[in-house]
């Protein structure tokens, strides 16, 4: 009842070992690719960390970096093992390590899959972080004289120009905050005083946007101030005007940018996962084939290789029992005493635990 049994002649075994050696080296390269993808993503997120609220969205790139490094190590070891397996004499060295190696690699491929899936599920965390970060950045846009926030104006301006976006959700976000510093407001002016009084918090609010929101594709020079006032500008209608300022919000623009990167990375990692899985399958076949050869005794004979010796259910049950019995290693099971042929077992003690019978001198 072996799962997916395949017969292996000696030449087939040697060829399999050689192919697996090459594939393992290719996997080392894919491990390096994983590592560099993780590094790239980390750098991209770092570049914009001033407008992200939670600066620790580094779980995905860190995972990719760790997985990449471990993949290099595991596949390097796998390459050495497969190289030695083509010669059945050297197989003895690795006999004991191979099964634990295969089990470790199997669990490791799970990590690779998790890494790939995380790339697709990071969206919500990122969106939350961008929303809060941009809100803070817009609030502190005017604070170019406060240390720690003085660079935010430049950052937001360059962001809006580069990603062709305006505000958090849209350009109206600028209407709700004071983005002109008090240093540049003539507080003695009546108009300024009216505006400051007209809202609860005493903020100088206008229906204007900064210059970095201006759309370069507009046929007319940019209208930044008094955006909602149609009569302030000749031949201008606020409701139908679409080319004047950028209509996309920066949160959406950035989210799209990052999701594009992560989707490509996720796709690449999935392909690498499939590749690793196939290499692992090959190594398993090689291991079982070589073990069977050793059992048969003749190194040149044909042997069988399989994925699992018994069916899935039986293997699961056996492993479960092994794990259960690991916890009971201290207790001596009387029933198991019968199985040891070297011990004399008196029939009368069947079913009872062994007790120390004091000898009568």
């Amino acid at each position, binding site marked *: 009842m072996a799962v997916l049994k395949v017969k292996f002649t000696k030449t087939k075994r040697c060829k399999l070992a050689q192919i697996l050696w090459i594939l393992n080296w290719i996997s080392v390269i894919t491990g390096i690719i994983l590592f560099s993808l993780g590094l790239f993503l980390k750098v991209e997120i770092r570049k914009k960390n001033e407008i992200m609220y939670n600066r620790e969205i580094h779980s995905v790139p860190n995972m990719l970096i760790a997985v990449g490094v471990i993949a290099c190590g595991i596949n390097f070891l796998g390459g050495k093992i497969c190289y030695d397996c083509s010669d059945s004499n050297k197989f003895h060295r690795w006999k004991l390590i191979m099964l634990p190696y295969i089990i470790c690699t199997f669990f490791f491929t799970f990590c690779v899959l998790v890494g790939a899936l995380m790339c697709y599920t990071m969206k919500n965390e990122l969106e939350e972080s961008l929303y809060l970060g941009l809100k803070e950045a817009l609030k502190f846009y005017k604070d*170019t*004289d406060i240390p720690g926030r*003085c660079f935010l*104006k*430049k950052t937001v*301006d*360059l962001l809006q*120009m580069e990603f062709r976006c305006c505000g958090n959700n849209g350009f109206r976000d600028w209407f709700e905050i004071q*983005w*002109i*510093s008090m*240093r*540049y*407001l*003539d507080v003695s*002016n009546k108009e300024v005083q009216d505006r400051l009084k007209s809202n609860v918090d005493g903020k100088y609010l206008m229906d204007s946007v*900064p*210059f*970095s929101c*201006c759309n*370069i*594709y507009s*046929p*007319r*020079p*940019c209208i*930044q101030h008094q955006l909602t006032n149609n009569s302030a*500008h*000749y*031949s201008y209608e606020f409701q139908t005007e679409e080319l004047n300022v950028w209509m996309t919000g920066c949160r959406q623009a950035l989210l799209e940018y990052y999701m594009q990167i992560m989707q490509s990375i996720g796709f690449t990692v999935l392909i690498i996962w499939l590749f690793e899985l196939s290499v692992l399958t090959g190594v398993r076949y090689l291991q079982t084939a070589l073990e069977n050869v050793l059992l048969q005794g003749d190194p040149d004979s044909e042997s069988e290789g399989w994925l699992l010796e018994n069916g899935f259910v039986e293997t699961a049950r056996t492993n479960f029992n092994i794990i259960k019995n690991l916890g009971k290693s201290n207790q001596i099971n009387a029933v198991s005493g019968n199985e040891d042929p070297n011990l004399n077992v008196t029939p009368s003690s069947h079913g009872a635990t062994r007790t120390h019978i004091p000898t009568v001198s």
Partner: protein
Amino acid sequence: MVLLKVKFPFQRRVKVAQGLWLLSWLATVSGAFIFTLGIFLKSELRKRSEVMDNTEIHAVPNTLIIVGLASVVINFFAGRICQDSLDVARFPRWRGFMVPYFAGAALLALLMLVAVIMSYAMKGNLEESLKIGLKNGIRFYKDTDTPGRCFQKQTIDLLQMEFQCCGNTNFKDWFEVQWISNRYLDYSCKEVKDRIKSNVDGRYLVDGVPFSCCNPSSPRPCIQHQMTNNSAHYNYDYTTEELNVYRRGCREALVSYYMGLMNTIGVVVLLFFLIQMGVLVSLRYLQTAMDGVVGQENTECETEGYILEKGVKETIKLTIQKIAKIFQPNQVQNEQAESAPGTAG
């Protein structure tokens, strides 16, 4: 009177051949690199071709491309020749090839020097071209409804934002041009009418600049309009304000960008020129040394190699005579024809 004679024992010939083979491969790769540099420079110049008046500056990347291709071919042949030079049987077949080969190589070397000189000397040409191109660009900034010019606004805006510059020489160029289209001017408004009447050509001139001139590093929101009017803005002094708009002119920015590129490329081509001369000189020595070996019984004997068989002046005289003979074959034939009947008759 042989020029720069060097003795070549067998071992030295072998060493020179091996060294030359490696050097020729290095030179081939460098030639391909020069080719890609030429393509890169051409594409960079093309990106901004809308603000350039003429395409004379393209002579530099075109020369680089030709130099790159020619050097790949020449160095490839150099490698083949030096491979065959160690085999006395195969070497003679290159004999007829060598004179045109060295003529071509000399031309290539000359072209390389021309490319280096051009990459430094064409600055004035580039500056003139940009001056006229930018002037037109700024003039047609407002014509977003005129076919053929409707992209000028976009081009100039992107240029000013990317190169962090404003106007042609500086931002005051915008004060002398009407950059707001008449479609967006309210002619019934008194202020507009006054402005238009106030200058000879009837243009609407303002002391303002487009938004793409704004400097994001400025601590205060950008002041684009009424820039010379201190009282229009609170706490603003036009004469001392430096961070508001970009101070540099776009002509200066573009010239420094392109000259930076071309100077670097010029240095690379100069280095490559030295490598190429090394290849050619070694090949000449190897060829002349092998010429001495061909026909001799002992192929491992010592021979002499030289650059020129006779001195420089004599070689030039002989070359001129040869070229003259090619262009006047009829004269010699006529003389022979005249003398033949004379002797016969």
